[in-house]
């Protein structure tokens, strides 16, 4: 028995506690493994994934809000189309011209076809007479006749087929060339308006074709597709570009602020 100093007290606890061991309950290890497993599962959907998903949702909804007055601008867009009408008239005329050029050929060919037809009937009649001098040239005629008969039919269909793509293609190409002629237009004429609608439909088809060509390969292009449906402007609110492995943002258009990377 002796008085105890602070140092002695500290040493007592220090020394005795080194040999202290106490078994925790088995539940502790189970909780530890459960916690470790839980964290591994969380890794599959990282917080950054959800943040990216949320930001896309925000951007799309912002786009929807922002572009509700876009319809007003779209009206302005139709006037541009009417400008196109005037210039695109010429290709249409050209097409009809080319069509009219092909028609005479067609008629010529049919004439060729028809005439041997009659002669064929006549020759068959003559055949029985069996005049070799007359028969020879007559036999030669049907030989020529058969290929000629099929060719004009093919030509006709090919002319028709060619005419349509030419029409749509020129409708796009020509406006660029004649974009300076805006002043010469009279938008108010109902004729023009009607044609504008027609041209608009055509250009819509082309846009769809272009979209079809862009295959949806990544999340970026999927977002591009969705935004293209909502945002009709040339510079979309957000645009993704597919690089080799990742799709990165290539353009942002927030109305006042526009960012676009070089393609």
């Amino acid at each position: 028995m002796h008085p105890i100093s602070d140092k002695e007290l500290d040493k007592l606890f220090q020394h005795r506690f080194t040999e202290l061991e106490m078994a925790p309950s088995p539940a502790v290890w189970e909780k530890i493994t459960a916690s470790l497993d839980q964290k591994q599962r969380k890794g599959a959907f990282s917080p950054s994934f959800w943040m990216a998903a949320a930001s896309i949702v925000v951007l799309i909804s912002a786009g929807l809000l922002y572009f509700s007055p876009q319809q007003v601008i779209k009206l302005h867009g139709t006037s541009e189309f009417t400008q196109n009408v005037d210039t695109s008239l010429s290709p249409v005329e050209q097409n009809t011209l080319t069509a009219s050029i092909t028609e005479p050929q067609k008629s010529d060919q049919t004439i060729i076809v028809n005439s041997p037809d009659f002669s064929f009937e006549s020759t068959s009649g003559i055949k029985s007479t069996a005049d070799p001098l007359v028969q020879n040239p007559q036999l030669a005629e049907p030989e020529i006749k058969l290929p000629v008969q099929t060719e004009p039919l093919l030509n006709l269909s090919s002319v028709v087929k060619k005419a349509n793509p030419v029409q749509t293609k020129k409708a796009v190409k020509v406006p660029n060339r004649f974009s300076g002629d805006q002043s010469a237009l009279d938008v108010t004429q109902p004729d023009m308006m009607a044609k504008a609608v027609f041209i608009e439909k055509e250009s819509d088809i082309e846009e769809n074709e272009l979209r079809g060509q862009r295959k949806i390969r990544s999340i970026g292009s999927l977002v591009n597709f969705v935004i293209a449906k909502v945002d009709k402007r040339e510079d979309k609110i957000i645009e993704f570009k597919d690089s080799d492995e990742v799709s990165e943002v290539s353009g942002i258009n927030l109305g006042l602020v526009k960012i676009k990377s070089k393609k």
Partner: protein
Amino acid sequence: MVLPIILPLKHMNLDRTSTVDCLLDGCKKGDRKAQESLYKALASKMMAVCMRYAKDTFEAEDILQMGFIKVFRKVSEFRSEGSFEGWIRRIMVNTAIETYRKNLRSLNVVDIDEVYDQPQSTFDMGKLELNDLLKLVQQLSNGYRIVFNMYAIEGYSHKEIAKELGISEGASKSQLSRARAILKDKIIKMEGLDYASNIG
């Protein structure tokens, strides 16, 4: 921060130390069996550390659980500068300190321990049971207990304690002296009971 490890080497079980070091590689790879073996080898010892810092077994097990999760997550950061066991032990102590700080914020613990001016007291240290000593420490209020553990057993300086707990060095010193006073008082009372039972 350099934390001197007071744990005397002669008390370390050499067999266990070697197995713990062998399990290090497995734990770094995230091997569940290695993790379990490590846990089984050290859980009881680390539980004792947690018990000193906790007011009861439930709190100690919470600290132990959080501590081991940290150990398995951060094991790749361990550089073989000190012993693996010592590193794990430091994580347990740090987890206990964090828990104390969290409790302080949420519960706003008020120390209710009375401090008695002790006359020259005497006792026989040899007769004290280990579990009794643990109970004495656990019965201290949270503030006294953590300062006593950190200073007397882990060997932190008052400066380090002040920094860790966000208190002044003076507060650390006064809390330590009060903790010591309470412990001395209680030991004497226990001795007294023991003495009385011997007489009776």
